[in-house]
């Protein structure tokens, strides 16, 4: 039987049984007396049901088979190996393999660590070496996105193969991917990330066979395969077009905001100027007129370059007069403004900075002349040359620490296509201890939440409905931490206090719940074709503190401008023992669950709890503990010693 047909049948069965269960839960089963646990529980279950719906939608369409043929000759390709602090030997091993890629290309090491020994090693091997130039000094670095953006300006190949420092490519990687670009709308070909230093047991859940398999294949069928940062080929023209269009759009927004902020500072200065200080009054009026003229000119269709050029000229004339007249008055204020402008942080962007600058300026008591100068500084900083960035074009998105997902979403919304090519063409190194793995997962989750909050896919123009759902589905799955908390609390309150979130754990309950649960698990089984999805299910619950932290820190970052620590995952093990504190919340939860189960049994014996309810909730506790139990082998894991399967 057609496998795709089978999958659709299971999706529909799961959908029907799930809808039946959720509707019954909402309408007939809620125990309103205990609404404080009943409502969160039904919300958590609804959250998971929607997650299953998204999964069903993702895998609904079979991946169209692509005929792989030899690519055209004569394409120009740059191979980028990004590194920050990985050992030189590891980077060089990757570079050697990159040199052996069969299709003609140039290999470059993009060294964000600016290490002299890395440069020498690259030179000795005969590959290119790129580090950040002088223009990046005192500017936001934007981590890996910045590293790639810098290299884009220094190279000129039509296509770019991007590799993390540890991803050793096979010689045929370009031969098997470049042919997709025969379609002029294809911007990206992503291949799987697969790790060679992982045991079959994979206690850290490093391999992601469901993602680099049915999920990406399903997304591919909706033209929504994601860019995952490494092992992908990109079309330079698509990235540059993205960079140029974003520059044009963001520049206009930034200039209009700067004019608005300048008005605020001006109004403040007007209020505090003595009526008899005619000279200052005159200066303020000149500046106000200049701002009004600029705004009118832009509204009237004048280009940004023209309007800002004229404004700059006027401002510098006014500044010159002011400086000669009141040099001493302003010295102190100028120093303060300067201090503001040397601030840089990881997630800096133009628009954010205008707000920050304005707030800082407004919070400070400036003399009226100081305000004039503050305004002039603000307006100067928003000239067309974008001095707040190392380079005007930032093709790879810098709104998130996971630049890959944000970039592919922007490419899709500009009408470009992406392809997921399901063949392992590079072998990498997974984190070798729980601590590194947790840092990595935190970063992915934080980055995804940043994109969701800054550029919600549901409201992005240019994306198809299916693409919106595909991006949103991934973001949705990172909210699972909230559901996890409810799934811990509900059995505990029943077992300890007899508090029921449902009217009764009766046969009616099981009639509704069990068919849905079985259909759901069968769907996973059919889709995954026997590859284990258990590790993924375990970590989805077991890493709940990470998911919660990711959401809260992304919210603080996006809305309150708190910095988001960017952690580069160490690719070689540490050997640090006794890292129990890493999982202190999970241990705490496990202890509470065990105590609750014990109390539940005692209450059952004394006739305080019912047998069925107790049985269900103890089964639930065992399920929770079973999922979290993976953390024990994960904590004891010290990496896979043998690396012979790294080279093909």
């Amino acid at each position: 039987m057609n496998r795709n047909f089978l999958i659709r049948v299971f999706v529909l069965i799961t959908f029907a049984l799930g809808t039946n269960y959720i509707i019954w839960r909402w309408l007939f089963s809620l125990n309103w007396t205990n609404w404080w646990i009943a409502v969160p529980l039904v919300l958590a279950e609804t959250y998971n049901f929607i997650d299953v719906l998204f999964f069903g939608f993702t895998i609904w369409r079979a991946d169209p088979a692509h005929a792989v043929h030899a690519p055209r000759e004569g394409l120009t390709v740059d191979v980028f190996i990004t590194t920050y602090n990985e050992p030189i030997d590891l980077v060089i091993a990757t570079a050697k393999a990159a040199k052996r890629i069969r299709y003609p290309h140039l290999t470059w090491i993009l060294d964000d660590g600016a290490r002299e020994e890395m440069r020498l090693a690259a030179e000795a091997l005969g590959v290119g070496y790129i580090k950040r130039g002088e223009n990046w000094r005192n500017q936001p670095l934007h981590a890996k996105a910045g590293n790639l953006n810098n290299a884009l300006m220094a190279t000129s190949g039509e296509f770019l193969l991007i590799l993390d420092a540890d991803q050793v490519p096979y010689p045929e990687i370009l031969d098997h991917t470049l042919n997709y670009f025969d379609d002029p709308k294809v911007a990206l070909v992503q291949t799987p990330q697969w790790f060679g230093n992982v045991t079959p047991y994979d206690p850290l859940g490093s391999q992601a066979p469901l993602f680099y398999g049915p999920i990406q294949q399903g997304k591919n069928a909706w033209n929504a395969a994601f860019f995952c940062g490494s092992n992908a080929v990109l079309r330079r023209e698509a990235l540059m077009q993205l960079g140029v269009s974003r520059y044009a759009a963001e520049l206009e927004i930034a200039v209009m905001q700067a004019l608005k902020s300048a008005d605020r500072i001006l109004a403040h200065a007007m209020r505090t100027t003595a009526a008899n200080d005619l000279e200052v009054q005159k200066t303020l009026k000149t500046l106000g007129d200049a701002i009004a003229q600029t705004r009118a000119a832009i509204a009237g269709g004048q280009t940004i370059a023209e309007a800002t050029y004229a404004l700059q000229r006027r401002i510098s004339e006014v500044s010159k007069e002011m400086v000669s007249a009141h040099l001493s008055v302003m010295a102190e204020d100028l120093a303060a403004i300067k201090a503001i402008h040397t601030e840089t942080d990881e997630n800096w962007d133009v628009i954010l900075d205008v707000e920050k600058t304005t707030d800082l300026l407004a919070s400070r008591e400036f003399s009226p002349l100081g305000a004039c100068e503050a305004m002039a500084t603000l307006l100067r900083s928003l000239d067309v040359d974008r001095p707040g960035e190392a380079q005007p074009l930032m093709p790879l998105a810098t709104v998130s620490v996971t630049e890959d997902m944000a970039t592919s979403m922007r490419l899709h919304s500009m009408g470009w296509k992406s392809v997921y090519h399901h063949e392992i063409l590079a072998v990498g190194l997974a984190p070798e201890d729980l601590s590194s793995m947790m840092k990595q997962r935190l970063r992915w989750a934080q980055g995804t939440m940043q994109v969701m909050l800054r550029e919600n896919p549901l409201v992005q123009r240019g994306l198809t409905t299916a693409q919106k759902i595909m991006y949103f589905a991934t973001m949705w799955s990172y909210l699972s931490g909230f559901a996890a908390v409810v799934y811990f609390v509900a059995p505990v309150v029943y077992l300890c206090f007899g508090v029921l979130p449902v009217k009764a754990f009766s046969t009616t309950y099981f009639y509704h719940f069990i068919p849905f649960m079985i259909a759901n698990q069968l769907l996973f089984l059919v889709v995954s074709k026997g590859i284990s999805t258990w590790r993924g299910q375990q970590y989805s619950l077991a890493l709940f503190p990470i998911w919660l932290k990711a959401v809260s820190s992304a919210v603080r970052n996006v809305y309150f401008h708190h910095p988001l620590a960017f952690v580069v995952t160490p690719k070689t093990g540490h050997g640090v023992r006794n890292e129990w504190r890493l999982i202190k919340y999970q241990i705490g939860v496990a202890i509470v669950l065990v105590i609750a189960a014990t109390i539940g049994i005692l209450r059952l014996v004394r006739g305080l709890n019912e047998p069925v309810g107790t049985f269900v909730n103890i089964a639930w506790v065992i399920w929770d503990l079973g999922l979290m139990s993976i953390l024990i082998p994960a904590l004891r894991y010290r990496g896979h010693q043998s690396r012979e399967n790294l080279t093909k």
Partner: protein
Amino acid sequence: MNIHTKVLGEGVVVLRLEGKLNMVSAPHLREEVHSSVTAGNTHVAIDLSGVDFIDSSGLGALINGLKATRQAGGDLRIAAPTEQVKMVLELTNIDRVLKTYGDAETAFSG
């Protein structure tokens, strides 16, 4: 792509481009603008009448040039684009940033 440089005096220089301004030739233009600025000619007019094809990397080189000249207190202006170039300028909204002048030699006069 070929670049013909003509210094008009008073810090103004005209760069006349001929051929394709694309990812291959963009670095060439970038270097040319930088050397003009270094030589003190911070007002750079780019004559695009001989450019029959431009891609996003070519636009990138123009934007980089704009940054370089503005930082040096000058400006970069583009003149006489062909139909294909005009289309790309509109497609990427760069026509909202850069004004198109009729003639490179007079872009900085008046």
